[in-house]
């Protein structure tokens, strides 16, 4: 198992390098210009100067090389310095965003809390709702509950968040005035009142996102339960005189969770990637919003770094899912 993990880890290095190169070239090819947001009153020569100042004049390969060095050599040094109070990174140029002229990683770290809170919590809520629905629908296959659950989860799957989001805002913010329509990212929770307002502002984005998660995970759960409910070992468990609760919730569930847990693990990178539309609708200003504004502002270093982080997480969680599979299922051995 350990060799397997290490091997895959080492193999993922060239993969990631290749991915980063591919993303970089793609972004190079992309049209658009960081100067697009500069008003038309600014004359072209000035814009050209500004471009030069951003390092846009250099050939793409040189830019890529610089990015690699900054991302994999200087940024870790910064992290090291931050933890241990050393100063290796002093005076070295980090990955700088074109929009804000500040280190990309700082902004990413700044955005992490709200993204994790909202998107992460919605993932957890979604899973917590999905699992019981999936289990019960499978146990009572074709019952009214199953049919209704299927219907509702499919509706949840099919309604885009840019529709549910504003709908919730109109109902709960404008009409009822229960929840704020604009998320306050500066809120620090240190009292019950703050906690309450935190809850209030999270509830709508979390529910919108959880709807999607619920829909998908409950489908997986149901299918996996159905697979296992017909297995021989279930009959054996019943023949031992175990109660239905134990048979289903211990024997069947434990087996059914194996594929579902890996599916859940594969969904985790999306949490860090944020939820572009939902964040935008509720002004959560997390990673998703960061990516979309960077994209529209053609802030290449930011887009590049974010997509790369995302790619990194995907590759890692692919690996984690594989390892989890092996851990959860004693039959699987990697050697």
């Amino acid at each position, binding site marked *: 198992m350990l060799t397997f993990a290490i091997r895959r880890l080492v193999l993922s290095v060239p993969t990631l390098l290749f991915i980063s190169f591919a993303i970089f070239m793609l972004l190079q090819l992309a049209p*658009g210009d960081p100067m697009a*947001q500069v008003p038309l009153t600014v004359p072209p020569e000035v814009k050209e100067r500004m471009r030069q100042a951003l390092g846009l004049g250099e050939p793409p390969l040189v830019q890529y090389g610089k990015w690699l060095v900054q991302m994999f050599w200087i940024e870790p040094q910064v992290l090291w310095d931050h933890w241990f109070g050393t100063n290796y990174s002093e005076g070295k140029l980090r990955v700088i965003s074109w929009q804000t*002229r500040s280190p990309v990683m700082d*902004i990413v770290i700044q955005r992490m809390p709200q993204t994790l809170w909202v998107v992460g919590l919605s993932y957890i809520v979604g899973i917590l709702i999905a699992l019981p629905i999936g289990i019960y629908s499978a146990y009572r296959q074709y019952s009214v509950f199953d049919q209704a659950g299927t219907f509702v989860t499919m509706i949840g799957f099919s309604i885009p968040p840019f529709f549910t989001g504003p709908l919730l*805002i109109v109902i709960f913010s404008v009409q009822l005035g229960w929840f704020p329509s604009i998320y306050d990212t*500066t809120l620090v929770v240190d009292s019950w009142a703050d906690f309450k307002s935190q809850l209030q502002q999270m509830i709508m984005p979390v529910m919108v996102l959880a709807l999607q998660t619920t829909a998908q995970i409950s489908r997986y759960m149901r299918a996996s339960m159905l697979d296992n409910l017909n297995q021989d070992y279930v009959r054996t468990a019943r023949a031992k005189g175990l109660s239905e609760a134990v048979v289903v919730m211990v024997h069947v569930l434990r087996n059914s969770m194996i594929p579902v847990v890996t599916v859940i693990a594969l969904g985790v990178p999306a949490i860090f990637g944020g939820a572009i539309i939902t964040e935008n*609708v509720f002004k959560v200003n997390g990673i998703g919003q960061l990516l979309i*504004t960077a994209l529209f502002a053609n802030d290449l270093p930011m887009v590049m770094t974010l997509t790369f982080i995302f790619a990194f997480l995907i590759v890692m969680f692919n690996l984690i899912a594989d390892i989890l599979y092996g851990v959860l299922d004693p039959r699987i051995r990697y050697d």
Partner: protein
Amino acid sequence: ERGSDGNVSIIYWQAPSIMNPYLSGGTKDIEAASMVIEPLGRYDPTGALVPFLAEEIPTVENGGVSEDLTSITWKIKEGLLWSDGTPFTSADVVFTAEYCMDPEGGCAQLAKYSGVETVEAIDDLTVKVTFSQPTPNPYGPFMGGQSPILQKAQFENCKGAAASSCTEQNFNPIGTGPFMVTEFRPNDVISMEANPNYRDPEKPAFATVNFKGGGDANAAGRAVMETGEFDYAWNLQLAPDVLAKMEEGGMGQPVAAFGTLVERIEMNMTDPSPDLPEGERATVAHPHPFLTDLNVRKALSMAIDRELLVEVGYGQAGRATCNLVPAPALYASDNTECLTQDIEGAKALLEESGWTDTDGDGVRDKDGMKLSLVYQTSTNAVRQDFQALIKDWWSQIGVETELRNVDSSVFFGGDPGSPDTFQKFYADVEMYANNFDGTDPQSYLSMYRCGNEPKPSSQWQGENINRFCDPEYDALLDELARTGELEERGRIAKQLNDMLTKDTYTIVPLVDRGRVSAHSNTLGGVQLNTWDSELWNVADWYRIEQ
């Protein structure tokens, strides 16, 4: 009394990403920064110049501007302090000019300093700017939100190539304005508090500011007018009915003001046909097959009902116009003939000049050439509505239109490699809005000089978007540059404006676009200003007790 009114919340649906206007040309950044750092003088809502850090606005009359128009001398108010308590001196002003004029800095406001030869400190409170040639409008540097004064002590090490590594300075500039930054989260939130060293001890009335960015205009308007979560929302580019509906929310109200921003259709005088080899497409080498015909351009303009466009797209935030320079009054031509739609007239005009529908497909043609246009603009709901309406009218006069909308980051991006930029103009007509800084249209009108068109040899840079070329126009421009007397300047500018619009229909102005913002009913002191930052007088804002 300072700080007595608690907190004010402002929402900008485009989030500020930096507090240094010299490193970003974006309006959102300039306006956010304007609460913290200030120029020597500003424009007020009428376009008049008012002193801020200067004692008075220098003019030829008061001797501040030299007779030969080559230098301007600013007197700074006495006793000004930076928010860190250090005194404000002319050295800071000189430094600011150096900072922006550094060739490696990539200063976004460099155009403000064009023609500047030297900036020197005469004494601690006097600065003299010398231009290399007579400059009738010497209010480029240190005037308006684009050109505020930076503190020398803070930015000393940030000149040139080092500009972008000064994150701390760019996010938290020390200023003389009513507020200072306590926390800056790029593209998200800025928290500010009142500047204890602000020159007026009574102001600002608010102790803190919560400046939120992000989302869309719709949500921003809703947050001010419907849910009352915010006090001020910037630039609500929304359809009039949407805005009206929001106002019914009763928590706030929209305010509008007009500047020089004109939504216009530009006619391509060159041939954008994709059949031409790359490098010759849309260049002066190939005149446009039919848009060079004045009657066609005129007919296209006549077919448009500008009032309806305003009603559909802007409501109280728009005025139909026939002028490229709609304000200030001194420079605005009184041309109104285009305001009435005349479909029949347009048809007759086309008929007259030989454009008839010979093959009965509803599209006029002549010499085997069809009146078929590609009409491009950037992606934006109102613009798309305009496209649809105009396409409809043009089809009524027998002109076929293909619509195209391009993502605005590409359209305005100026990437010479992209075929979709407004400069390349790979379309027959295109629509966008433009304006000029300050109140003087000289440089704005100079854009349409012969040879200033985007072309391959200039990397497709250039401002003469429709490739207009008229020696008479150029001669008139030169005359304008030599003239200092205001009345005379106004006359020449009007004549130039008419040459582009009603005489040649090279530019077909549609709507004079105002600015709509909204403030809550409890926020007082808002004076919407389109000539400068909207937040120019934020120091005077206060809470209305209810």
